[in-house]
């Protein structure tokens, strides 16, 4: 596989090392001279100096082949967006993954159609949420483009849903229970399943319905 990695900071450098070790062909583009010098010592001709948002630099890196994968992992979100757009729209690169440094910029990537993104901050916040659930609802997976998310909810003894059949619950439109985890085993959630305290529920829902779902399941 041929991969262009844009940005030779900690992320770009580590990813490049792994890809090279796996036997892939990689070009790593870094614009800062001091960083480039170090990268060249580590990676030899894999490292290239230049601003990866410049079309001429990308062409020297082989964007026209085109590569199987472009990783836009600089520390600048605008740069990552532009690199992704040039790769996808200008050169037909099929797989582009962009790093989002500031989670507030995620919406811009979504709007501009750069759907494969990685945001370390959001990832860490997700883990924090999992350890310290806020309001009893844990977000496990976000399918942003599809407008769905998967959440986990635990039924407590005082929850309004405890002792009720799933079929009796007035679940909000655009939400559905998938499974019930009880005593370490997962049951498929059907209308006749009776919920008991301690049950961990997996639900799929449209973003924005969290409060409604929470009210029905765990808080009156």
């Amino acid at each position: 596989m041929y991969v262009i990695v844009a940005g030779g900071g900690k992320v770009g450098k580590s990813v490049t090392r792994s890809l090279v070790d796996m036997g892939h062909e990689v070009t790593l583009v870094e614009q800062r001279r001091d960083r480039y010098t170090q990268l060249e010592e580590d990676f030899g001709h894999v490292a290239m100096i230049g601003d990866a948002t410049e079309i001429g630099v990308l062409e020297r890196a082989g964007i026209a082949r085109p590569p199987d994968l472009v990783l836009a992992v600089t520390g600048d979100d605008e740069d990552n967006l532009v690199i992704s757009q040039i790769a996808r729209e200008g050169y037909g690169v099929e797989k582009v993954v962009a790093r989002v440094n500031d989670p507030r910029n995620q919406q811009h990537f979504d709007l501009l159609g750069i759907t494969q993104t990685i945001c370390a901050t959001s990832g860490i916040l997700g883990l924090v949420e999992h350890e310290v659930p806020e309001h009893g609802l844990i977000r496990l997976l976000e399918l942003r483009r599809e407008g769905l998310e998967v959440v986990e909810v635990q039924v407590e003894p005082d929850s309004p849903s405890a002792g009720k059949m799933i079929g009796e619950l007035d679940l909000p439109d655009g939400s559905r229970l998938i499974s019930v985890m009880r005593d370490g085993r997962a049951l498929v959630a059907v209308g006749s399943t009776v919920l008991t305290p301690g049950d961990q529920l997996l639900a799929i829902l449209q973003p924005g319905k969290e409060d409604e779902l929470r009210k029905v399941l765990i808080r009156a």
Partner: protein
Amino acid sequence: MLNALVIGCGRVGSSIALQLHQEGWDVTVVDENEDALSRLGENWPGAFIVGHGMDAQLLREAGIEEADAVVVATDGDNTNIVIGQVVQKRYGIECVVVRVLDPLRADFYAKRGMRTVCPTQTAVSVMTDAVRACDIRPLEPTGAA
């Protein structure tokens, strides 16, 4: 009154803001640096908001939803390109004019429906014409036998 939003208040952005104001527009200016306000003169009658043009909340405060035209002229090409697309797509504003210094990127995004203006390209053309206008002819035209 027509509303214009100018993002980036350097030499270019501030001059455009002043010009549009003179022509009767209601102008709001956004810049990261509050000192940039001084570029608008002593009695700037329009709004001036400190912040980054990528910030969605700031754009709303600056009245993006009512803007008839947006000028994006910060000192970063990629920042301008991203802000330009965001205001065009999220808020459906048709008149979005974006400064891009790199001619290749200006051309790339112009082909995708963005009104890019490339001062570098303009300078190349105008300065080359200015040299030609000096009316000096090479003694031996290049390539002549």
